[in-house]
């Protein structure tokens, strides 16, 4: 296999994107068929490349040190395969869901363009190349969010662009610092201890990575996008692609570029970010009254587990974080797609208006149930395994507080999904939506495939762990560490698992208590927690976007702009408007008065001028 094969995952989807953008909307099915077929071909290519593993393509590009350098190895091949798998499912789903969208042509074009950029970012082995693809993704994200066609879609798109732009800017800065201290931009040649300049580089690049993954506090555009962007975009970008890319880069940063030590300050920092993201986001998720928005907060909360896992710097924690990344991509993608399926048939995702849909949409309900149980960490699904690994890792660092935070997250994750599932699929049939039926096969099929994968990865967790995850850590962990995580991950009878199961029981209790208290209305099951004394205030503030750094930043800039306008611009303007013109007019008036048309007057000036000139010259001559 020649190294130029590595160009295929980038150039092929880009070419498809161009064709998709050019195909007239009138040719029925051509767009859908082409996109599904191309995605299938890419999936096949992903398998081929994953089997081949090691390939490298280097050619001159922008200048010395900035080469067009692509490298396929185990990790990137794994992410590439995952990306193409999700692309295929999304295309299949969108073929029906987005068929009648007024701008479907652009949607498919941008999706494939995003796939091309993502593949490029994963394969890049040069930081400049990475930044190139990474930045290009911002544009496709922006474009896809605007396709939501809601009145606020543009605003949210700008928000995603600015937040993403800030994170990417931090990353570029970090890369610059790293380049300054190592002298190279080739990624696989960099391996430094984080201290001084490189410490700053680490933090800045980390912001770039977790910002892409959507960790706090760079998450705030995701809940907005849940309502403003197409739901398939949510399954495509924030649920799967961005998690894969962000955590891929985070893992590369902590494993390859820098050596993250157990118990080091950076490790603690990452764990704090992870734990905070888990807890705060899950509390926000709990009280949501919209299906998609609830899911979007979970998309943020789950990033916390990944960041926490990777941040432990302990092999089982890192493996758990990466495994959680792929697991999360699967079930969260499945969850968004099932919410889309509900929206497709009922036209709404408001929990209040839904209810008792399980009978009419059994496959969607089943897919949702599996994915929801997986995200909640119910044995024996995949979420259970990866969360257990993260718990173990967190405990092994010697800071049990992080494990406790993760467990708190688990409680409320389950509680909120009980609420969601209960509201949408169980309970009495809602009267607000007309009678309906199951969605078409292309919509249901991706959900079921993802649900099946969740079961497979959970029950046969040895398969992904041994084939996908372990090789990533190969050679990174200390020699003595055993890299077989399969033994205690499935072990149901150990104290860690016991606590986890206890959490699930607590969640069940919370849900049914709330359900009872709120008059057996499932969508109100979280109200008792919502109404707790202090929490209520915090929730209100949060709903008012008080904690949204972006909104606060915008407010601050507006305030600053008003301030500058009032105290700098206006006074300066006043000087121009009033002082300058007044002075000008005064002098002009005085001078005009002097020019009264009298010959004698003028002659006098002339003679006076002559006298002055003579006097000056005589003075000068002395």
């Amino acid at each position, binding site marked *: 296999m020649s190294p130029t094969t590595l160009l295929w995952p980038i150039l092929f989807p880009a070419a498809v994107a161009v064709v998709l953008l050019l195909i007239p909307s009138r040719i029925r099915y051509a767009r859908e068929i082409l996109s599904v077929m191309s995605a299938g071909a890419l999936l096949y290519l992903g398998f081929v490349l994953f089997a081949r593993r090691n390939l490298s393509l280097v050619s001159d590009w922008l200048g010395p040190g900035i080469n067009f350098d692509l490298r396929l190895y185990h990790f990137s091949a794994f992410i590439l395969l995952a990306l193409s798998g999700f692309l295929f499912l999304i295309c299949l789903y969108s073929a029906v869901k987005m068929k009648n969208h007024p701008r479907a042509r652009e949607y498919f074009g941008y999706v494939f363009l995003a796939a091309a950029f993502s593949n490029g970012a994963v394969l890049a082995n040069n930081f400049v190349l990475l930044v190139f693809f990474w930045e290009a993704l911002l544009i496709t994200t922006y474009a896809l969010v605007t396709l939501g066609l809601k009145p606020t879609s543009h605003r949210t798109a700008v928000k995603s662009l600015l937040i993403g732009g800030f994170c990417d800017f931090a990353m570029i800065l970090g890369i610059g610092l790293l380049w300054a201290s190592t002298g190279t931009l080739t990624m696989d040649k960099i391996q430094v201890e984080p201290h001084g300049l490189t410490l700053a580089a680490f933090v800045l690049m980390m912001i770039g990575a977790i910002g892409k993954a959507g960790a706090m506090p760079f998450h705030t555009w995701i809940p907005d996008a849940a309502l403003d962007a197409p739901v398939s975009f949510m399954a495509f970008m924030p649920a799967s692609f961005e998690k894969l890319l962000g955590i891929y880069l985070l893992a590369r940063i902590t494993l390859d570029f820098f050596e993250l030590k157990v118990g080091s300050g950076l490790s603690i920092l990452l764990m704090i970010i992870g734990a905070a993201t888990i807890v705060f986001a899950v509390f926000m998720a709990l009280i949501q009254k919209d299906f998609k928005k609830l899911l979007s907060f979970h998309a943020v909360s789950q990033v916390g587990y990944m960041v926490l896992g990777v941040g432990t710097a302990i092999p089982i924690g890192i493996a758990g974080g990466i495994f959680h990344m792929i697991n999360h991509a699967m079930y969260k993608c499945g969850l968004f797609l099932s919410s889309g399926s509900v929206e497709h048939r009922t036209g709404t995702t408001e929990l209040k208006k839904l209810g008792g849909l399980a009978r009419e949409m059994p496959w969607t309900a089943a897919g949702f149930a599996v994915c929801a149980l997986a995200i909640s960490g119910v044995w024996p699904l995949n979420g259970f395994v990866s969360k257990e690994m993260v718990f173990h890792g967190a405990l092994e660092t010697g800071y049990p507080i992080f494990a406790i935070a993760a467990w708190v997250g688990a409680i409320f994750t389950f509680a909120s999904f009980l609420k969601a599932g209960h509201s949408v699929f169980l309970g009495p049939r809602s009267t607000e939506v007309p009678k309906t039926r199951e969605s078409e096969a292309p919509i249901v099929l991706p959900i079921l495939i993802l649900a099946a994968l969740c079961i497979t990865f959970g029950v046969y967790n040895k398969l992904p762990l041994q084939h996908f995850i372990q090789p990533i850590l190969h050679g990174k962990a200390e020699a003595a560490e055993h890299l077989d995580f399969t033994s205690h991950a499935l072990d149901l009878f150990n104290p860690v698992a016991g606590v986890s199961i206890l959490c699930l029981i607590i969640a069940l209790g919370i849900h049914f208590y709330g359900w009872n208290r709120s008059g057996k209305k499932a969508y109100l099951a979280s109200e008792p927690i919502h109404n707790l004394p202090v929490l209520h205030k915090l929730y209100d503030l949060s709903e008012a976007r008080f904690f949204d750094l972006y909104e606060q930043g915008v407010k601050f800039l507006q305030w600053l702009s008003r301030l500058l306008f009032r105290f700098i611009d206006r006074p300066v303007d006043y000087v121009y408007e009033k002082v300058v013109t007044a002075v*000008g*007019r005064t*002098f*002009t*008036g005085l*001078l*005009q008065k002097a*020019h009264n*048309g009298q*010959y004698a*007057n*003028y*002659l006098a*000036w*002339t003679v*006076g*001028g*002559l006298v002055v*000139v*003579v006097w*000056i*010259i*005589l003075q*000068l*001559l002395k």
Partner: protein
Amino acid sequence: MVFSFIVMPLLVAAFLPLIGKFSKKLLPDVLTNAALAFLVFNSILLVKPVFNQGFIVQNLHWLGEKVNLQVALDAFNLFMLFTISLVSLCISLFSIDYLEHYGHKSTFYALFLVMIAGMNGLVLVPDLFSVYLFLEVAAVASYALVAFGLGYDELEASFKYLMLSVVASAFALLSITVIFGMTGSLNFQAVAQGLQDLEARLVLGVCVAFFIMGFGLKAALVPFHAWLPDAHPSAPAPISAMLSGLLIKVSGIYALFRIVYSVIGITPALSRLLMALGTISMVVAALLALGQKDIKRMLAYSSISQVGYIVLGLALGTPLGIAGALFHLFNHAVAKGLLFLNSGSIQHITGTRNLEELGGLGKMVPVTAGTNLVGALSIAGVPPLAGFWSKLIIIMALVQAREFGYALVAILASILTLWYYLLIQRQAFFGRVAEKWLQVREAPFWMSAANVVLALVCVLAGIFFTPIFKTWISPAAEALARGIQQVLMWGL
């Protein structure tokens, strides 16, 4: 060949009154324009020999005998000749249509040509008395031309102009007399040599003061400027263009600086004095321009202000300053000629020059409005028009000579310039069309053509600024910057 600059217009002027007896319009138009076109052509032809030899000196021969009239041509006065010929050609083209309603075309053209002959003569002659002679030739013609309309204002302005001008001429003549008394000669070269050997600084100082007053009045430097805002607006538009565009530069700036640089020799003290005069003119006149309602009066004050720039650059004395000033002289001649002609167009179209009555003409008369905008922006110094470069060079030269104060004032004055030119634009051309101007028609062909040609010169000189500056302005500036050496080189 060089004499044709003086002889040709005089000859045509001599026959025009006779021709006017049987051809009221066609022949005078054709003859005048042909003569001026020939002069433009001639000045271009002279470029090569002058640049090759450095200078040309010729004596007039009459029937084989040498007559005591000499001309000396170097890069500096060739530059002036070209400017005069080009601008006056455009003005005479404009006059073809504009003079229709005045009548007496042949008389007008005759006076016009006499004035040009006077200016050309002044530029060419290398002795002090001839300078005075041609100064008066041009001046007398201009007195008559200012009064050409024979209205009350015209006559009053002409009289005021005459009375002040005569004072100026008298002082210049007095100074020339004193210098003749001291050196026994009037020839530039002989005077320059004579003055170098002479120890009479005090008398010479007074002479210079008289020159500054005399020629400064012709150039309308503040405080010798008061006649100009009356005289220039009163004349017919082509004559206003002639006076503001050319006459004040030739009989004022050229004469003053030719004598100061090439005959007497510039000193740092003199340089400072002239710079101060230039700066005062620049600022005071700009402020005065701001308050005017009559377009032509505003343009007249603007001329004083721009002359201030030129004097500032020339007085600075560095090669860059002189070059910038000469380029500005050219640009101002072209742009101010354009603007005065344009004000003639406006008057022709609407019958008024009062800015407060005008408004919204831009839509009705696009050619007039467009050319006016080009001229205004060029003088105000907006890139990429020619005026921007010349002002920039003057300011750069000031900065280079570490005269930061003057540079700052020059920049501020250019802002004032932009201000009052934008006032013209806003009040005359932009905005809504006033009801009474809905029926107006574009100016006749030759008027528009002359405007367009001058506007094109503004634009092209700005775009091709580098080659023009290198091949045309810099040699002229060097000729002046050589000072007395330049005159001594002529070897008369």
